[in-house]
């Protein structure tokens, strides 16, 4: 056995022991070890190790902290100083980095605010983790569709028959009623919904006054928000028990006052009436076969969702005696419904979460592009700092401290950029809010600050890592000898990064273009009807009682072309039925036809073209007549349909006409079967106005309405604005992506500009010599531009296929879409190339015109 003490123990001792004690302790330990060696080597070694362990106590452990602290502080200070000097010395690259990073970070912050807000929507309910929404999968001929509407009695049955359900509530979240509430002469239009009595046990809307267990228990109750209370009564105090007149029809007693609805609630309303009151007016809601209200349940802790889903489906089956087997109810967490609201064929298929993801990715990309600028400029300028690195290494700087230096430099610039970015965010927040249609505010709280620190750290790390690792690698000997040439690897990495930047930019350009084109297409597409200059009024009060009189009065107003009324609003699915029977119908078929109760003249007014037959007319007795659209005729498989009869809810109806297909739903959907029949419930009065006379007609209408229908303020909408709001989400994406793509391009170009100016500067002597030897300006421009052109072309080659797939997958959300034309892609590529040329061109032209004597004079 060698007379040496155990190595590992010694290593350990040297690692932890205070340096001023180490020599003595090591010496003493070795001496004892040597002595013990004589008796038993094994014992001696064990004893040595044991003793070393015994030294592992506070008195002997070297104090890592104070030394380290002063050292880091000094280095930190030094690094910042060097960074500062570099910024001052190379102003252009500093500003390029600053502008790029601060706009990039501002984008990221905006997106963060938006994403954060989206993720918080409907998450404020106290029992959110147990609050479920009942939805239904409905089998249709074209596949399964998923609806949030349920049968009226569902909630009561669930609460009574399912032990897992603590409370169940019926409400009308998806349909907010716009109705008139009056206190004395004060008539106010307000938005309200109906809810059953346990509503406040499920949903955490706070009550200022009233007991949450009681406020909705009486049929005569109304709960209003403080805002509405102020508008109606001028105060929020002592109004419980007061009377409010509803639609000039019924009296309700205020039973509670709500705090204003939080911005994070996806449902906004001013008042709540009881579902019991709703049932009084709408007896169809008592049936298990009609689905319109929504059902929510609060489950007991630890309930088995799978099992409950089966039980709920079974419940529906027994209640409907198996006659609604095409409907399968199931429950999902209400808090998730906002983000995951889309279903395809009965399966969850994303929803708003897709936009959340999309924008998060865009945010990361934009920051990445800005980081790449930093990386490229830092490595390109490496030659200038390489002597610094060599010098530092020669006097003993370790690689780790050099890495730290570059990282702190990048963090410093990121930090400065962040401050600018925060400024930008505050500056542009109002504009951003209008685009996204939210009321975002910058809430300075710990999580935001933590997030910002995280962003600085991550961005600093990403931006600084490559230069740090790359610059710190050089051997001081080679560097100080001045032998270092640009390595191929370095050049390639830089080129690769530029290509990556431009690829991202091109993908963004293509996406923006495609989104824009699709929206244009949707807006300008022939819908099969004319949506322009049509005013929609709801019918209430005297208007709904004496509709025909009202219509004929309105028709007299100058500027009004035609007036009719419809039970359908022409913008989206209103309601359907499978109660149509035709010869040869499969009795199991539950495909719904869109119901369109119509008044005389509606089809003509909307400009819907007839394929054959006639429209409703006062000259005929049309109460048993029906008009289908082409899609319906095709679906039913009827040939020569005019004059044939079908059954609608058991009544014989004669087909008098077939319309051409028109888009009553958004372009996401195919045109579904629909039918018109002459029905009394046509709540939407539609007024076609001569173009350019809107203001005049509205003013007259206002006057007339006031006398005709006292107590009801006039509220109207334009059909074409309604139509546009079908695509609000796409509009938003289109606007936002336009800005983001623009920024991405600008930031990329900044980087390219920085690189190009650097190369031009570096090659100044070469240019001078070339010129002396007779090269033309143009040849020099070509020489300097060719590199960048190659990179951008490479980027185009990479980006186009990717953008093709991206565009394709986005368009697949639409049933009607534009074709992807080749020139969208070529256009995007060319524009990227042109922008790049423009950026580099200015510089190169300037460089090529330099006087050779100037750049060759000093050596």
């Amino acid at each position, binding site marked *: 056995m060698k007379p040496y003490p155990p190595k590992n123990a010694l290593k350990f001792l040297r690692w932890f022991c205070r340096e001023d004690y180490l*020599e*003595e302790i*090591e*010496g*003493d330990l*070795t001496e004892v070890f040597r002595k013990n060696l004589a008796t038993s080597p094994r014992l001696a070694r064990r004893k040595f190790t044991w003793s070393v362990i*015994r*030294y592992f*106590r506070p008195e002997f452990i070297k104090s890592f902290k104070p030394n380290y602290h002063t050292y880091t502080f000094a280095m930190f200070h030094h690094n910042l100083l060097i960074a500062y000097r570099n910024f001052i010395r190379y102003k252009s690259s500093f500003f390029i980095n600053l502008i790029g990073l601060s706009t990039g970070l501002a984008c990221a912050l905006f997106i963060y605010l938006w994403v954060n807000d989206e993720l918080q929507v409907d998450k404020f309910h106290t029992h959110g983790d147990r609050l479920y929404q009942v939805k239904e999968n409905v089998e249709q001929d074209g596949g399964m569709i998923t609806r949030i509407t349920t049968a009226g009695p569902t909630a009561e049955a669930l609460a009574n028959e399912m032990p897992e359900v603590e409370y169940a509530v019926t409400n009308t979240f998806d349909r907010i009623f716009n109705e008139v509430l009056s206190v004395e002469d004060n008539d106010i239009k307000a938005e309200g919904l109906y809810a059953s009595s346990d509503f406040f046990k499920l949903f955490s809307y706070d009550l200022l006054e009233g007991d949450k267990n009681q406020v909705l228990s009486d049929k005569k109750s109304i709960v209003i928000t403080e805002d509405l209370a102020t508008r109606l009564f001028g105060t929020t105090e002592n109004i419980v028990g007061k009377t409010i007149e509803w639609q000039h029809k019924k009296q309700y007693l205020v039973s509670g006052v709500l705090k204003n609805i939080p911005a994070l609630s996806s449902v906004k309303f001013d008042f709540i009436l009881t579902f019991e009151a709703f049932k009084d007016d709408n007896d169809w809601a008592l049936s298990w076969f009609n689905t319109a209200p929504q059902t929510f349940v609060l489950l007991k802790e630890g309930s088995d969702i799978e099992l409950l889903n089966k039980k709920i489906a079974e419940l529906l089956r027994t209640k409907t005696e198996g006659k609604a087997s095409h409907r399968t109810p199931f429950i999902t967490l209400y808090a998730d419904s906002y983000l995951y609201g889309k279903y395809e064929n009965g399966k969850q298929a994303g929803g708003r979460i897709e936009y959340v993801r999309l924008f998060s990715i865009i945010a990361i990309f934009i920051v990445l592009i800005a980081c790449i600028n930093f990386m490229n400029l830092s490595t390109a300028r490496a030659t200038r700092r390489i002597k610094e690195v060599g010098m530092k290494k020669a006097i003993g700087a370790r690689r780790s401290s050099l890495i730290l230096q570059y990282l702190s430099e990048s963090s410093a610039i990121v930090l400065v950029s962040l401050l600018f970015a925060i400024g930008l965010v505050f500056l542009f927040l109002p504009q951003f809010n209008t685009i996204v249609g939210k009321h975002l505010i910058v809430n300075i709280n710990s999580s935001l600050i933590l997030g910002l620190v995280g962003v600085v750290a991550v961005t600093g790390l990403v931006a600084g890592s490559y230069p740090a690792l790359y610059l710190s690698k050089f051997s001081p000997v080679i560097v100080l000898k001045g032998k270092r040439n640009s390595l191929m690897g370095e050049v390639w990495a830089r080129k690769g990064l530029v290509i990556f930047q431009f690829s991202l930019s091109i993908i963004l350009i293509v996406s923006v273009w495609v989104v824009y084109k699709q929206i244009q297409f949707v807006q300008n597409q022939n819908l099969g009807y004319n949506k322009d200059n049509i005013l929609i009024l709801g019918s209430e009060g005297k208007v709904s009682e004496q509709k025909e009189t009202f219509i004929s009065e309105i028709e007299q107003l100058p500027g009004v072309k035609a007036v009719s009324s419809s039970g359908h609003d022409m913008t989206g699915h209103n309601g359907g039925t499978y109660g149509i029977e035709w010869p040869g119908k499969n009795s199991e078929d539950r495909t719904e036809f869109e119901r369109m109760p119509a008044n005389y003249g509606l089809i003509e007014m909307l400009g819907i073209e007839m394929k054959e037959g006639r429209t409703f007319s006062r000259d005929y007795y049309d109460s048993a007549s029906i008009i289908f659209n082409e899609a319906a005729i095709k679906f039913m498989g009827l040939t020569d349909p005019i004059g044939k009869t079908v059954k609608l809810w058991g009544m014989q109806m004669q087909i008098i006409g077939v319309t051409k297909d028109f888009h009553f739903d958004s372009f996401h959907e195919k045109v579904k079967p629909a039918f018109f029949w002459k029905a009394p419930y046509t709540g939407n009065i539609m007024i076609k106005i001569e173009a350019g006379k809107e203001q005049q007609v509205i003013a007259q209408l206002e006057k007339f309405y006031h006398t005709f229908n006292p107590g009801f303020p006039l509220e109207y909408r334009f059909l074409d604005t309604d139509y546009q709001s079908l695509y609000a989400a796409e509009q938003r994406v289109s606007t936002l992506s336009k800005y983001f793509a623009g920024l991405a391009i600008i930031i990329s170009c900044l980087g390219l500009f920085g690189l190009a100016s650097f190369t031009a500067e570096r090659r100044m002597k070469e240019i001078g010599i070339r010129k002396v030897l007779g090269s033309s300006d143009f040849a020099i421009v070509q020489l300097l531009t060719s590199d960048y052109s190659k990179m951008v072309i490479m980027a185009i080659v990479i980006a186009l296929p990717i953008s093709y797939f991206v565009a394709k997958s986005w368009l697949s959300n639409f049933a009607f879409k534009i074709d992807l034309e080749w020139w969208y892609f070529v256009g995007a590529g060319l524009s990227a190339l042109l922008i790049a040329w423009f950026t580099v061109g200015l510089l190169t032209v300037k460089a090529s015109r330099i006087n050779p004597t100037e750049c060759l004079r000093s050596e």
Partner: protein
Amino acid sequence: MKDHSLGEFEELVLLVVAAHHDEAYGVSILESLEEHLKKKVNISAIHVALKRMEDKGFVRSRFGGITEDRGGRRKKFYSITALGKRMLDQQFSLRTILYKQIPKISFS
């Protein structure tokens, strides 16, 4: 240095340091302690005591020459300071006084 107490083991170590006078170092202290106490002592305990007493100002130390035996490490020699001596004297007189107060007891 604020603390002027002297623990039992520290006192023993200090006595040995005083006895060896300027030639005391870790291992020599260890050996004479083991000899007198008739039991094994760990070197780390001695170092702890020495460092503490050095902090309190009872001993001072100097480095000696290099010896082969110690793998090229220098010895660190300890010697008692005036304060340390006074401390020992105090302890000694305290014990003597108390000892003398013991009445004659027969333990038969």
